[in-house]
């Protein structure tokens, strides 16, 4: 007797069979979250204002205060600060943005809800990392525009310069993002996350040469700043945005590209290990 198998299945069985389809890969789920993450970020005017205008405004203010030329050079102190300020921009769009954003996702239940679906932690981070990449690129464009238009920074003219700019930018984002993810685990809510990210961030600006040129810092501050990624990012950006003779104002008298690469890579690896060992979906056990 001929039986149409699909017709013969009860609606319930049919439905159950369909839902046994394998869920999409972590990457595919993650990619589907990129646009929503961007929408959520760009739909918050106050957050956008803080993230994008703060570094630019501080750059213009400090650059205007330190308007004199660096000794024995044609480069203004403002230009040195403007080049360094890119590091603050990245810190803002990666470390602060993720530190607060993930704590907020934990607080509002977004992470818990995602945990109840086939999405994995990797899916979640694909969305977040893409958000950071886009926001950081936008921040870099804002700050480079300010630097070029107001403080006469010169964009790299050779491939090597762009290459250096690219890897400093990339390693800076990766290391600071991972630190942001790490720090978010110690915040019980978005407000406390704002405190434990912005607090260290402001401190780091002072010891890392983004607010004040490194040559003006006492030795202990320089030593402290040299431990963290911001100082090295800022140095990397100065190396491509300032005339090459400005290297004499660096602590070592040179741009120290290898040291910059090593420190940022070390923070990236350490950050990854730390995140993998402490990331939690919710406040509960």
């Amino acid at each position, binding site marked *: 007797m001929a039986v149409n198998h699909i017709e013969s299945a009860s609606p319930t069985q049919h439905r159950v069979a369909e*839902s046994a389809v*394998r*869920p999409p890969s972590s990457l595919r789920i993650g990619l589907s979250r990129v646009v*929503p993450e961007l929408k959520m970020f760009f*739909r918050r005017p106050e957050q956008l204002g803080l993230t994008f205008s703060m570094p630019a405004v501080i750059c213009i203010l400090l650059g205007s205060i330190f308007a004199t030329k660096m000794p024995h050079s044609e480069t203004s102190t403002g230009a040195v600060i403007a080049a360094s300020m890119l590091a603050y921009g990245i810190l803002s769009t990666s470390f602060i943005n993720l530190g607060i954003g993930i704590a907020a996702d934990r607080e509002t239940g977004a992470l818990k809800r995602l945990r109840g679906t*086939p999405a994995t932690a990797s899916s979640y981070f694909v969305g977040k990392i893409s958000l950071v990449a886009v926001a950081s690129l936008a921040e870099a464009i804002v700050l480079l525009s300010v630097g070029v238009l107001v403080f006469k920074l010169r964009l790299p003219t050779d491939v090597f310069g762009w290459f250096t700019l690219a890897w400093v930018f990339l390693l800076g984002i990766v290391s600071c993002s991972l630190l942001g993810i790490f720090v978010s685990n110690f915040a019980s809510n978005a407000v406390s996350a704002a405190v434990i990210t912005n607090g260290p961030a402001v401190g780091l600006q002072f010891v890392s040469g983004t607010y004040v040129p490194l040559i003006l810092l006492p030795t202990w501050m320089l030593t402290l700043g040299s431990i963290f990624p911001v100082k090295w990012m800022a140095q990397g950006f100065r190396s491509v945005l300032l005339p090459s003779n400005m290297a004499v104002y660096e602590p070592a008298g040179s741009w120290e590209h290898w040291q910059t690469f090593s420190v940022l890579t070390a923070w990236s690896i350490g950050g990854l290990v730390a995140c993998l060992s402490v990331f939690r979906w919710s406040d509960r056990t």
Partner: protein
Amino acid sequence: MTGQSSAVHVRSLAKTYGRLTAVRDLDLDIGYGEIFAILGPNGAGKSTTIEILEGHRKRDSGHVCVLGEDPGTAGSSWRAKIGIVLQEASDFGMLTVSETVQMFAKCYGKARVPEEVLELAGLGSVSGARVRTLSGGQRRRLDVALGIIGMPQLVFLDEPTTGFDPEARRQFWDLIKLLAADGTTVLLTTHYLEEAATLADRVAVIAGGRLVAVDSPAKLTGHVSTAATVQWREGDELHVEETDHPTDLIRQRSKDGAELAQLTVTRPTLEDAYLQLIGLA
């Protein structure tokens, strides 16, 4: 074998938080297609239990099998088969209702059509609104929409109508009944007796982290004293007697043709049974 015969199979479940025992020695069996309610007062261990079954919380001991797998170790294929309706989420406020549902639909290999889910949940008219502008009731309907978008075999609802006004609660119940009509297994927790009685095929009453009774709402009263209470007034004196034979008692008292003033005969209601089960009566 246990995983095949029932959607949820729990034996000797225990969970403590520090010195506080949340759940102890809990056994549960929920069949496929059943609407099952865990009823109990606040702090009875309802949320802890449902969160362990959802895989959101670790248990201290006991055997737990949900849709054939241990929720503590099950992977994303298992999570594709369950749907969790969160209790107090306030996430995705900046997305629109429709964007949120579409985003979650992409987490599943096979999902319902977002527009249809929104219609089903009664959110069709606000699909373009930002989530943060929704009312409390609409927000919970969105939670349901997100819980069922992946065509789950089993849906968890943790105190779904807490804070609702009576009208919104009734509408929400209709939605749950609609869900269950296609054979989806539903497990809900509630501290509203009426909710459990209206929705559930079977009710587990828990108090102090322990299961005190499991039965259909109609039969739950059978777990407690079923004696009738006969009450009447003679002069200034109010008489109250409990008896298994109220008709006999009244016949005795009125055989001389006397009218018993303010006569009432009452049986324990489901509420009385519930209060007695959780040790408050």
